[in-house]
């Protein structure tokens, strides 16, 4: 067990190191190492799953990494259902994307660097998943930030890529500031950072945080906002599409951005605490979960809206990712972590598939990303077309594809708990179908819109094979019972007081065959299921009208202002540029001015000049005239004797 865990965690970094030191000049060997190791980690994950079937979870293996005073940080592995499922997603999707990358990036001269960075990413992501304490999560949290930075800026000679990488890292850092403070608060209030101990403590004494509960939750949430690109730190994710497409698929769609959701699920005990504010702030009545739900819903809606008017295929998908992440966060906010994790898993499959499909198109079209220059790919790239279609449908939530189930749980919960959030969820579902329909109809259906798309050809097996595998996963992920697998993780714990509505009252009542599963949403919350299907149909229909065989975007010509705002992503970048960045720049300017001129120039200059001046002045008493000297000599004697005698 320990060996397997160590293997899963450290094999990828071993791969990164060996690529860096030994095979930097041999790209194919590097690719081989990296792919092999990611596949091995996947196999090891399977072995781990199999082993844990017979054991009681969670299993915790702990080594001390650091211990000073009452601060103790572990290198610890926490194996429970939550981490297993996440691990499965990360290594599974990761391996496929590794393979895909070989096809996609094959000719790049810095392939070794690419695979090394990818391995670092795998290492860090697995670290987040397996971590048993907050600080270890934070460490790997930062490390995924690094690998994201490296991979977004992979084509670093391109200014935009380098800038995007920087932006991504900084936005993450802003979130992490809160995250680290939150961790410090957790530690100072509870005295431990281990998840297991935290939930035990909180279940015995929910008031352990006293008045700091909500603040702690919100600070931890900052980390999530940064990593999962929730509003207001969502701006980095669309820019991150400057990176290679497999990276976008792996990091910025399937796994890393979902880490925020994973953290929310992991630390749910803290987030689920009821509202408690310190004195002076107690007029703020809301709890952490309220904030989480609101942010999630808002992000879902906003991103979906922006996606409607984007033209870059990857950017549309990026906003779609934002929107779906918003769903997941909202699900947590509705105290429904199982649904969030469920959606996370299915989303990982179909969104990775969408990105990889997009990547396949991009390769075929020689790095053309504008959807208005594509079109007519149905016949030219059949495998890509069909897999992309499956993924689109899954994303939109057409039963019986996986997306339907996971999304439906969230919509149902939202409608059940809060009508506003429910409405937002439904509207977002509608918008999702609309923009995905737009994307699909414009880029795949109809006639070709440019020369490059005329010459498009289907890619080789190494690219299509992962597509097919992921398509299979996207179709069937709804039936394999991810939700019921996760349920024991939560039901036993302190969630009783958060009035969480489970899809199944207990594990025994879970549907036991695929048909029951298929119809379960209709049985469980028929209203929500029907409404969401209606939204999907409406969205699909509308996009069919607008965009089937369309020559240009009708929306942007009809609603110019709205379209402009949406195209410009609601001017968030400009806003930040003109507020935060401006402020920071001016502060720096002031400090620099003070340092350069006031401290460095005036103060030091004055002191120096004064001393120098006194020196020059004293020097003039040396007149060169002996009689002056004698006079001073005698004067000195007179003064001294006068003073001594009159003492």
């Amino acid at each position, binding site marked *: 067990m320990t060996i397997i865990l160590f293997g899963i965690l450290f094999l990828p970094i071993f791969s990164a190191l060996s690529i860096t030191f030994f095979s930097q000049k041999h790209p194919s060997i590097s690719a081989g190492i990296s792919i092999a190791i990611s596949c091995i980690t996947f196999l090891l994950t399977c072995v781990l799953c199999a082993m844990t079937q017979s054991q009681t979870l969670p299993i915790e293996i702990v080594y001390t990494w650091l211990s000073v005073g009452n601060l103790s940080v572990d290198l610890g592995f926490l194996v429970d259902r939550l981490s297993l499922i996440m691990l499965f997603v990360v290594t599974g999707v990761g391996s496929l994307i590794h393979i895909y990358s070989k096809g996609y990036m094959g000719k790049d001269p810095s392939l070794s660097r690419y695979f090394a960075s990818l391995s670092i990413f795998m290492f860090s992501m697995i670290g987040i998943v397996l971590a048993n304490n907050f600080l270890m999560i934070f460490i790997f949290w930062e490390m995924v930030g690094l690998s994201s930075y490296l991979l977004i800026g992979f084509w670093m000679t391109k200014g935009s890529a380098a800038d995007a990488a920087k932006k991504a890292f900084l936005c993450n850092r802003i979130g992490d500031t809160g995250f680290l403070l939150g961790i410090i608060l957790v530690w100072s209030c509870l005295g431990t950072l281990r998840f297991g101990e935290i939930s035990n403590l909180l279940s015995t004494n929910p008031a352990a945080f006293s008045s700091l509960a909500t603040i702690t939750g919100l600070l931890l949430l900052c980390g999530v906002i940064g990593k999962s690109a929730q509003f207001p730190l969502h701006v980095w994710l669309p820019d991150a599409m400057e990176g290679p497409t497999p990276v976008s698929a792996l990091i910025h769609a399937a796994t890393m951005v979902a880490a925020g959701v994973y953290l929310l699920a992991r630390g749910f005990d803290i987030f689920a605490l009821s509202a408690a504010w310190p004195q002076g702030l107690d007029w703020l009545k809301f709890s952490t979960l309220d904030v989480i739900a609101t942010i999630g819903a808002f992000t879902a809606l906003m991103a979906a809206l922006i996606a409607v008017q984007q033209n870059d295929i990857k950017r549309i998908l990026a906003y779609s990712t934002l929107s779906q992440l918003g769903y997941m966060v909202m699900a947590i906010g509705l105290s429904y972590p199982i649904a969030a994790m469920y959606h996370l898993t299915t989303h990982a499959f179909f969104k990775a598939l969408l990105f990889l499909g997009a990547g396949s198109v991009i390769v075929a079209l020689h790095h053309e990303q504008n959807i208005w220059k594509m079109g007519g790919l149905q016949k030219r790239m059949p495998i890509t077309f069909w897999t992309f279609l499956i993924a689109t449908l899954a994303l939109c939530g057409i039963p019986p594809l996986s997306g339907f189930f996971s999304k439906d749980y969230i919509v149902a919960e939202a409608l059940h708990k809060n009508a506003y959030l429910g409405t937002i969820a439904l509207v977002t579902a509608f918008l999702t179908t609309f923009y995905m329909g737009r994307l699909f109809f414009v880029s795949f259906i109809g006639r070709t819109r440019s020369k490059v798309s005329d010459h498009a050809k289907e890619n080789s097996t190494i690219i299509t094979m992962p597509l097919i595998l992921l398509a299979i996963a996207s179709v069937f992920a709804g039936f394999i019972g991810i939700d019921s697998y996760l349920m024991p993780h939560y039901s036993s714990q302190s969630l009783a007081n958060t009035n969480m509505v489970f899809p199944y009252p207990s594990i025994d009542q879970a549907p036991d065959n695929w048909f029951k599963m298929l119809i379960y949403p209709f049985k469980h919350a028929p209203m929500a299921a029907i409404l969401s299907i209606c939204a999907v149909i409406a969205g699909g229909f509308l996009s069919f009208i607008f965009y089937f065989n369309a020559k240009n975007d009708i929306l942007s010509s009809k609603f110019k202002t709205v379209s402009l705002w949406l195209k410009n992503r609601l001017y968030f970048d400009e806003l930040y540029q003109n507020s935060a960045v401006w402020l920071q720049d001016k502060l720096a300017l002031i400090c620099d001015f003070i340092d350069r001129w006031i401290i460095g120039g005036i103060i030091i200059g004055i002191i120096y000049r004064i001393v120098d001046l006194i020196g020059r002045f004293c*020097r*003039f008493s*040396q*007149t*060169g*005239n*002996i*009689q002056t000297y*004698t*006079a001073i000599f*005698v004067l000195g004697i007179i003064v001294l004797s006068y003073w001594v005698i009159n003492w």
Partner: protein
Amino acid sequence: MIATIETYLTIGLGHYLTVSVILFCLGLLGIMTRRNILVVYMSLELMLNAANLALIAFSRFNQNLDGQIMVMMVVTVAAAEVAVGLALIVSLARHKLPIWIDNLNKLKY
């Protein structure tokens, strides 16, 4: 009467010292004010002699000879000093340099 005159006429330590100090101050003033180096040098000798006078007076006052021995030494040293000093002043003159003391101010600041 005579006694009072005697006390006035008896020349005591105070008188010697007064003369000595006056001479000393004259010497000092000479050094500080006269421009000719030779005169300055003579003023210096005057100061030495003023000190000698004080030494002799004190020697008498203290009833021991230490002061007198000291005077002998001072006189000897002064002679040596004069020998060297005058040589220097002569070579100054040889260089056709002015022997006005305030012209010797090339070295300053």
